[in-house]
């Protein structure tokens, strides 16, 4: 349906104006431009314009050796860096037939899940900031500091970890990390209670989110939206269960699914996911095997037999898939990154029709977009 037809359909005065939710804006989490055609308070058409932070990761992939591309993987979606590195590393390992020791797989799961929790905490704080509640952001960041401190102690970085290597990990974890992670799990569960009392049960928030921005499962399928977006619309799709990888089959965890498809459902999916991630971390810490963290005989300059390789993981935002095309040399021929935020954003145009602007922004916040993830 063309924009003009929609504008003429039902409007007060029939006059519309174009409002630019510009690249610099407090409510878009990153540099995203959305051209809104508005009729008074209502959005008639929302056209996202991305590309303001295109950093050419895929092109860089063609010019770097397999190992030199590792820092890039952390920077595609910096909040969920571990999962992205996991996808790339796991596929290269499988192609090069490297056997990753079990201890390394478990530690990869632990760090991935801690990273997922920290990403959801950032989302939680930023989402509430959009809605006008300033305090939960700081509480969430306080919790996130604990995760960042743990990960800093083993990897050396707080945000863009370059921790996984082909064949395992760059270095092992120590006792402090294990005890610290256990302490964190024990600390986080009551904090989730605090968030429930302060935020989730709050009538003002419920009025802002319940029934707002409904997205049906069909719409998700049409646009390829994954992650909490599709799980908030009733479809139990999680790559960790559908296409298990790493050590995930050994752990017992649930996939939270809510049927309503509104902003509240997506919110609840993410809060529940934090709880499930804590379960996974706990189980992994209890059963952490001893042993080396690096495979034996990893060639210094890795070469992969020519071919087409794919791998998908469940990142914090949805399904992240990497497609590597190798021509037998030590640099990839092509690295294709299928990022979840790109697909999640593409349903914004259809979902935000005839919504009021603050509601549309609540919808965008609930999609959990990280703009560098869209533009790569």
């Amino acid at each position, binding site marked *: 349906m063309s924009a003009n037809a929609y504008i003429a359909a039902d409007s007060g005065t029939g006059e519309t104006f174009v409002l630019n939710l510009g690249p610099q804006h407090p409510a878009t989490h990153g540099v995203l431009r959305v051209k809104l055609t508005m009729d008074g308070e209502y959005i008639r058409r929302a056209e996202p314009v991305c590309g303001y932070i295109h950093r050419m990761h895929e092109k860089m992939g063609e010019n770097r050796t397999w190992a*030199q591309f590792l820092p890039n993987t952390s920077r595609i979606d910096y909040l969920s860096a571990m999962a992205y590195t996991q996808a790339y590393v796991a596929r290269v390992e499988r192609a090069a037939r490297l056997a990753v020791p079990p201890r390394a797989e478990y530690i990869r799961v632990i760090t991935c899940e801690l990273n997922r929790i920290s990403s959801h905490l950032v989302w939680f704080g930023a989402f509430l900031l959009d809605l006008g509640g300033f305090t939960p952001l700081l509480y969430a960041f306080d919790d996130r500091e604990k995760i960042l401190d743990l990960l800093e102690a083993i990897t*050396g*970085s707080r945000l863009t970890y370059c921790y996984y290597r082909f064949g395992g990990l760059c270095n092992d974890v120590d006792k402090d990390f294990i005890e610290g992670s256990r302490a964190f799990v024990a600390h986080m569960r009551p904090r989730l209670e605090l968030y429930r009392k302060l935020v989730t049960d709050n009538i003002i928030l419920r009025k802002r989110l319940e029934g707002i921005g409904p997205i049906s499962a069909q719409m998700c399928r049409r646009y390829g939206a994954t992650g909490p977006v599709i799980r908030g619309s009733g479809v139990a799709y999680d790559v960790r269960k559908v296409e298990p990888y790493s050590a995930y089959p050994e752990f017992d965890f649930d996939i939270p699914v809510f049927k309503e498809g509104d902003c509240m459902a997506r919110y609840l999916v993410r809060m529940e996911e934090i709880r499930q991630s804590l379960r996974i971390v706990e189980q992994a810490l209890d059963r952490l095997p001893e042993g080396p963290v690096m495979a034996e005989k990893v060639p210094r300059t890795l070469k992969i037999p020519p071919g087409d390789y794919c791998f998908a993981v469940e990142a914090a935002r949805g399904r992240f898939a990497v497609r590597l095309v190798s021509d037998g*040399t*030590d*640099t990839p021929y092509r690295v294709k990154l299928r990022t979840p935020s790109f697909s999640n954003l593409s349903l914004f145009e259809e979902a935000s029709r005839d919504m009021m602007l603050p509601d549309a922004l609540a919808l965008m916040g609930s999609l959990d977009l990280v703009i560098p993830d869209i533009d790569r």
Partner: protein
Amino acid sequence: MKLKEVATGFASLLVGLRVTLAQFFKPGVTVHYPHESLKMPPRYRGHIELVFDEETGKPACIACKLCEKACPSDCIAVEGVKPEGKGRKVVTEYRLDFTKCSLCAACVEACKSEAIRFSREYNLAGRSKEDFLMDLLARLEVEHPQLQREKPAPPAEKPEAKHHRGETGKEAAA
């Protein structure tokens, strides 16, 4: 609007107020930088620095250029010279362009002589880009004044700056 809904809604507001009031009386969680600061963990990744070999009185680096090749961002420039009679090369110049470094540890892991490690510097601030084009040998000299720098080799035909992006050199040199 049902009365019960209004009542539970109002009650949820009071619960929220109690939560924030409880947090009001708890101590602050911030570190008052720059009056106080944190201690960096041992594995913290600051920019790299050269390791000083106490026995030989020289940096442990043998200018093999493995780090230069491993770096994805081309930040490292190493030059060395082979002194008379000795087997190993000695580094004469080690420059790090920290504006491009992504702290990925490729260089540290590539080094076979354990000659570079991460420092724990985070207090870096400068007024120009040149402040971050680091001369690591000069930094080493500051800490170890007994270091004697080798003189660099006489300038030979300098090859074109090569991008070390794999052997096939797709999109490589200039």
